[in-house]
């Protein structure tokens, strides 16, 4: 059903696009290569189509499944990518390694509309130069099945509550796991002071966890087949589960707080088509792209204040994430040193070993 309505709505655009392509090929041809998580906005079919028609560039995607994989791809294939999505906690690491180049902000027409606290965040501006354009931000917390839990939980302790013993889903990720435990213990998730307490808190999940999940797709399958009642999740994905898949899911930002993250778009060093890269980034941060992405598919919150203002009044990204009180409860992810990351990994592997027995 949906494809036909989508298609018919786009007939006029296609017609206009055909004309635009005829004009476009004259001055711009080539490929624009984007490196991003799969299914994360930049590869929406309609968006790619609009961009290709306007600029004449063919958009080609490559995906990664972890930040480390993204960095490895940039390291091993210099000059292979134009635009890359980088979690702002990693942007300056990538800049320091010379994997990305400074963004020419004057080429981004929407740059002025971006929320200043995100646009000017020190995590995106390394050595005084913008290396990433604030794109979307969101929250890592948990979501629950509204048909299973009668009351909306307001505390992160629900994940440790015996009432949901054996009914908790958990993402198999060392940094995220440590952050959740730190928040529950009232420690700083970016720099937990007492790692022994964190380990014990995670070990207490033994009776709770039903299974681990590693991708949005897997999360949706587990919830749909009734494998868990409450599970850690990402705000943008939760809205997609609700909007695009019709699952009975509500996302919660508990009173203890949650993890905030900001994703930026960067231009790779040696990008074959830097001009097209800037055009693509400009399109991605525009209200035109974002509003449609969030209302039709489901997205994290936009870093573009003008785009957020155009969302329907009841949109999660406006009602919940638009609330300044909520935002104060978020601990935004900060860069982690390699040593620290290795430490978190070892704690998590040790905990997983205990949980398996």
């Amino acid at each position, binding site marked *: 059903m949906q494809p036909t309505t989508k298609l018919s709505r786009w007939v006029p655009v296609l017609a206009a696009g055909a004309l635009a392509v005829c004009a476009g090929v004259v001055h711009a041809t080539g490929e624009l290569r984007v490196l991003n998580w799969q299914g994360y906005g930049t590869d929406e079919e309609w968006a790619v189509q609009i961009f290709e028609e306007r600029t004449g560039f063919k958009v080609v995607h490559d995906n990664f499944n972890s930040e480390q994989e993204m960095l490895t791809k940039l390291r091993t294939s210099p000059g292979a990518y134009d635009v890359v999505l980088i979690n702002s906690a990693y942007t300056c690491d990538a800049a320091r390694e010379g994997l990305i180049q400074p963004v020419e902000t004057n080429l981004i027409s929407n740059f002025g509309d971006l929320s200043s606290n995100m646009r000017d965040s020190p995590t995106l501006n390394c050595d005084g130069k913008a290396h990433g354009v604030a794109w979307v931000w969101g929250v890592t917390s948990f979501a629950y099945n509204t048909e299973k839990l009668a009351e909306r939980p307001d505390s992160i302790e629900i994940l440790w509550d015996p009432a949901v013993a054996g009914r908790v889903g958990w993402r198999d990720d060392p940094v995220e796991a440590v952050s959740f435990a730190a928040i529950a213990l009232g420690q700083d998730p970016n720099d937990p002071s007492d790692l022994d307490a964190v380990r014990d808190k995670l070990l207490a999940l033994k009776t709770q*966890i039903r299974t681990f999940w590693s991708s949005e797709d897997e999360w949706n399958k587990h919830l749909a087949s*009734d*494998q868990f009642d409450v599970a850690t999740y990402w705000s943008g994905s939760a809205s997609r589960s609700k909007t695009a898949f019709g699952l009975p899911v509500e996302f919660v930002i508990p009173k203890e707080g949650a993890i905030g993250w900001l994703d930026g778009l960067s231009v790779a060093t040696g990008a074959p088509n830097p001009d097209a890269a800037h055009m693509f980034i400009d399109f991605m941060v525009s209200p035109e792209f974002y509003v449609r992405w969030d209302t039709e598919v489901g997205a994290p919150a936009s870093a573009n204040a003008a785009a957020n203002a155009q969302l329907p009044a009841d949109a999660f990204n406006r009602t919940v994430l638009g609330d300044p009180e909520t935002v104060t409860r978020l601990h935004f992810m900060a860069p982690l040193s390699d040593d620290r*990351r*290795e430490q978190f990994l070892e704690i998590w*592997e*040790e905990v997983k*070993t205990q949980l398996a027995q």
Partner: protein
Amino acid sequence: MLRARRRTWAVLGLTGPAYLWLAVAIFLPLSAMLYFSFLTVAPFGGREATATLKHYQAFLDRDFYQVLTWRSLQLGLHVTFWCIVIGYPAALALARHVPGRWREALLLMVVLPFWSNALVRVFSWTMVLREGGLLDSAVRVIVPGMESLDLLFTYDAIVIGLVHSFLPYMILTCYVSLQAIDGALIEAARTLGASGWVIFRRIILPLSVPGLFAGVILTFVPVIGSFMEARILGGRAGTLLGTVIEDQFTVVFNWPRGAALSFILLAIVLLILAVAWPGLRRHLPQG
């Protein structure tokens, strides 16, 4: 003289491509991984790597790596045990008691699982094993009012999935050596008054040891390094040395640590084979 030389060339010409292929496809990547396992970081994109033994040291320092190794070995033993218990009698029946045409049809059914993708097989098991799944519903039809049977995300689920994957190897290798046993030996034993049990214990079992041994190797070795089945079917119980090695490669991109753990596992396998070898050699055909 001339004939002998010609023969040498023929042997070289016939086996050469296979050995060349083995060298390129197995030896080279494996040596690269062995080299990586002694480096501080994977040497990509101009990152400085220096020689170190710390990844091997980490295995000794962290108890959980040893616990996981033991878990993986145990899983290998359990899966191999069930493959023998189910596979050997099946192979025996196929080789010695099923008439010709039926045998072909049954053998085809044994190989059938090979024709589907391993991932698809494992995902279908999730539908069978979960609460309210096929198995649970079937059991409750037979025994109404029984407590619900929920095997998904347990250690047993991993064993079931792996036994299903590796059973064909065990059946086929056992079948080949059982079928090669000369029927005259059994008839001779019978004329000398041997009972069925004695024939099995003194003739059939010893003569089928090579096939059984091949089946055990083909099952045990891949199972202790398996990770995909454990990840999908095991849930919380699915952490093994194999999954931790996979994490090192795909999640944290610590290739040296992943490589070191893999080689430790390889060393353990070789050690087990070395210990078992003297006992086995007696049963293997000489020459």
